């Protein structure tokens, strides 16, 4: 059974139809990338997967649990399998880096002894190439790239089964961007994490994707392995990818 199953997902905001019948499946322990231009509805799709938005029509199931029908406590419980990296990092600006990264651990394992908590926070930051010196900094004191790395550390620290990435490499320099890609691959290889990545960074998408989909005009224009998508005959997909491959 697939870890994430999206069936005939429709969503409109007022008159504007953002998603118009999206279907996709993400296999366990695999990385699925959704590519698309800005405003194509990628983030809206991701927010349906974690139940931050409710669909107008269609279903979203994660690990066999139907997310779209859940409310309140049941929805909160269902989210325990997730970690999520937001486009703008979404760090809690009233907390230090340490407290930000420790937050999901403290909430999931309320009796975790402090030394172990501290060790896991430090280890998680080390994975994203950040040292002890950032622990007491506030989010406002961090650069954009550092914020994103702290957000990655926070998403992975509680060892979730599913990690959702909203534009993880946007605004990062090529070296940091590459290390983020490596982290996504490492999380998959070492812990069997299922990842869903929303991106318009084609280079990054081809580095991390086991399967890939291109979202256009609220529908999936092409879906398959990176190679299959590359050979897609859909005119939009060809145009979307051609510009990038020409540059290479």
């Amino acid at each position: 059974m697939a870890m994430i199953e999206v069936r005939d997902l429709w969503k409109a905001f007022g008159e504007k139809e953002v998603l118009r019948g999206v279907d996709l499946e993400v296999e366990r322990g695999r990385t699925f990338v959704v590519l698309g231009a800005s405003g194509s509805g990628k983030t809206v799709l991701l927010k349906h997967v974690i139940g931050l938005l409710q669909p107008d029509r269609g279903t979203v199931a994660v690990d066999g649990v139907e997310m779209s029908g859940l409310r309140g406590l049941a929805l909160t419980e269902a989210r325990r399998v997730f970690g999520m990296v937001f486009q703008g990092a979404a760090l809690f600006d009233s907390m230090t880096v340490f407290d930000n990264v420790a937050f999901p651990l403290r909430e999931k394992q309320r009796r975790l002894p402090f030394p172990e908590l501290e060790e896991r926070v430090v280890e998680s930051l080390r994975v994203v190439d950040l040292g002890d010196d950032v622990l007491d900094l506030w989010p406002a004191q961090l650069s954009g790239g550092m914020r994103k790395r702290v957000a990655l550390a926070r998403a992975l620290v509680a060892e979730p089964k599913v990690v959702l990435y909203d534009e993880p490499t946007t605004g990062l320099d090529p070296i940091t961007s590459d290390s983020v890609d490596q982290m996504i691959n490492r999380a998959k290889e070492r812990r069997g994490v299922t990842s869903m990545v929303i991106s318009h960074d084609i280079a990054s998408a081809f580095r991390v994707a086991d399967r890939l989909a291109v979202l256009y005009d609220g529908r999936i224009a092409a879906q398959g392995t990176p190679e299959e998508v590359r050979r897609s005959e859909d005119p939009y997909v060809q145009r979307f990818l051609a510009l990038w491959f020409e540059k290479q």
Partner: protein
Amino acid sequence: MRRVRAAFEDFGDLLLFAGESFAWALRPPLRPELLLLQMAAIGVGSTFIVAVTGLFAGMVLALQGNYAMRQFGAEGYVGGFVAISLVRELGPVFTGLMVTGRSGSAITTELGTMRVTEQIDAMESMAVNPIHYLVVPRVLAATLMMPVLAMVFSGTGYLGGYLIGTYVSFIPPGPFIDHTRRMLEVSDVLHGLLKAVVFGAVVSLIATHRGYSASGGARGVGEATTRAVVWSSVGILILDYVITFFAIG
């Protein structure tokens, strides 16, 4: 017509939000550290401004009371008049308005900023309900601290009234205090405390609700804050009438 409908929808939404907050308040885990933090921010942080406002309100009441009662030779009653006015009415109402301006606006801005920068979404994604984590401690703290602040207001107000009454208006201290003792009853204090509790809950629910449902970037947060302050202030004055009407009949 559309505005009236929107206002009713807003009010309905606020009631649902209040119900949800109440339901989450009863669920574990309790977070006493967050509650204490908010009690310090809302309560301790507002003490000085509430005390100063109370002091001057009491001083004015003594001057006005003396001016009015002197005409009937009833200056001695000024102490009782000041105390009852403060405890039943001015204490809870002014404290409610001060907390609205100081803490209510801060709560809406903080939660609104968290909403538009996806911090609330991030919290939800980590299986933490934001109403449980952010709203419940703020509402509980305001509900618990408002009566305390109202008492501070009334206390410093009475002190101000006493100082002005006795040293400026030359009312003898004996009758000033005696009439206070005779006129002020426990029911007056309970009446004022009930109002303060209700105002604390209402102000914090409106402030958190506005912040929680803010949208549209910095401008949206600004609008949410303005609305929170306006509706809290109006709400306090309307509820003040309603409670007084039912208490006095």
